[in-house]
């Protein structure tokens, strides 16, 4: 060591005793206790299901038992489409298993561009940005589009990714009562006129499966000079003439009424990923500013190849669309006929939510269904509105008539067992 080198640092002779480390995990105690109590009542863990084999878009093997899947968001049943699988296989072989990088640097391959081109065609949009998940699409778009001093106005029942996008950004956040056009109007009327405002809506709200009165809400938003983002995650492929979503079904036009549409590859498209599309001439600015787009790895080539193929096939999937609606209506009518309380009075979407009294009833019924060979989702607060406990069914175009009949029969038995129906 030279003369100018490091001097040895002496520790104080008697170091001050640090207090014992606080256990940061202690905050999970109530949650873990609740789970232990639930599990000790002898039920199976609704949040610990493992699909041992997946045999089709509508069936899987769970604990050795062939089970009908009625809780997967695989609305259009694209996961086993031969063209989709072939595209994924080819990409896996030609481009390898991963991209090892950000979309911004080395992580954009041919099929990322191909997926964005397919989306532009699907929506008739001039711009499309593919994110690694739908969650990140909302997180990135909302947090980047609305800056400091600007406003995001969101529905109280918005998805967690929308809330998190608000939390991540610097904008002022205002929420309005779920699907209330009047409340939205009132709140927008109280905001200062000058700052930029983004109203965030969803086509289908995924917990109860209800749809938004988008036409009226957009009218109000435009009256107050706001831009509009619509999340169409649960409607792609089967709402509107081109399957673009609830906004299209209600006669709204991208670029005029709606500024940004958020979507996902993990539902109707049948793989994973998220996207934002727009007709705005400055849309590419978002790509270069959006942290959840830049600071994460891009999707593997096989995933974007399957997405691109699936999106193109969805443009003309008229038969699937008709079958999906037919299945959804039959299930809704069947469950209503059995006397269940449902999330919507009529069949508004491909989600049918059965409303139950409490967690115990929901789990007893869920387990009875699983043992009979049917998988549905359990949903509980805080994910659900107004503290409700739900069994959520999401329907697939590939469910057969026989499966729908079977499902209704299983619900009849489980409902009696759980005391949810007479």
């Amino acid at each position, binding site marked *: 060591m030279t003369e100018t080198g490091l001097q040895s640092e002496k520790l104080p002779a008697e170091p001050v005793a640090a207090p014992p480390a606080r256990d940061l995990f202690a905050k999970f105690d109530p949650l873990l206790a609740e789970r232990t109590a639930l599990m000790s009542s002898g039920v199976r863990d609704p949040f610990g299901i493992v699909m041992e084999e997946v045999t089709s878009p509508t069936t899987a093997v769970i604990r050795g038992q062939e089970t009908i899947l009625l809780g997967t968001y695989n609305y259009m049943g694209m996961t086993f489409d031969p063209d989709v699988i072939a595209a994924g296989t080819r990409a896996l072989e030609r481009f390898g298993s991963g991209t090892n990088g950000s979309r911004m640097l080395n992580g954009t391959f041919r099929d990322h561009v191909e997926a964005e081109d397919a989306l532009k065609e699907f929506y008739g949009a001039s711009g499309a940005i593919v994110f690694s998940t739908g969650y990140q699409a909302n997180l990135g778009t909302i947090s980047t589009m609305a800056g400091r001093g600007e*406003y995001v106005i969101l529905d*109280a029942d918005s998805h967690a990714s929308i809330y998190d996008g*608000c939390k991540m950004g610097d904008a*002022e*956040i*205002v*929420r309005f*009562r779920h699907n209330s056009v009047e*409340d939205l109007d*009132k*709140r927008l009327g*109280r*905001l200062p006129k000058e700052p930029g405002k983004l109203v965030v809506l969803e086509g289908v709200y995924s917990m109860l499966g209800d749809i938004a009165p988008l036409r009226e809400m957009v009218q109000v938003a435009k009256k107050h000079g706001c831009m509009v983002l619509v999340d169409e995650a649960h409607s792609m492929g089967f709402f509107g003439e081109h399957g673009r979503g609830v906004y299209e079904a209600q006669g709204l036009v991208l670029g005029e009424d709606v500024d940004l549409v958020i979507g996902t590859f993990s539902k109707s498209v049948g793989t994973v990923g998220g996207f934002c599309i727009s007709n705005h001439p400055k849309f590419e600015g978002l790509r270069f500013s959006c942290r959840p787009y830049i600071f994460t790895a891009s999707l593997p080539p096989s995933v974007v190849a399957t997405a691109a193929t699936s999106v193109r096939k969805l443009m003309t999937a008229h038969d699937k669309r008709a079958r999906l609606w037919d299945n959804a209506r039959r299930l809704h009518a069947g469950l209503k006929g059995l006397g269940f309380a449902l999330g919507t009075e009529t069949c508004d979407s491909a989600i049918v939510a059965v409303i139950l009294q409490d967690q115990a009833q929901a789990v007893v019924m869920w387990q009875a269904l699983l043992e009979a060979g049917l998988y549905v989702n359990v949903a509980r607060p*805080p994910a659900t509105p*107004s*503290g409700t406990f739900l069994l959520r069914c999401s329907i697939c175009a590939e469910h057969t008539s026989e499966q729908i009949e079977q499902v209704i029969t299983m619900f009849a038995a489980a409902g009696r067992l759980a005391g949810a129906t007479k």
Partner: protein
Amino acid sequence: MTDRTAILDTLRTQIEPFNKKGVAITEATSFQGDLEWDSLTVMDFVAAIEDEFDIIITMNMQAEIENVGQLADAVEKLRG
């Protein structure tokens, strides 16, 4: 009656329907700790206060408000 007293009186009236435990309301009463409100109750209550005073309490502001006194301060400021 000063403005602030009037605001506090109105807040008390608005808290009443949500005050399931019958907690005595002072400026130090906290919404989470004393009243034990969950996020859904908070949302309904905030909406009621906003309508009453014709103001907007953004979620950013709500995150900073823990007790009745702080809410009265916010209302006073927002009404301008």
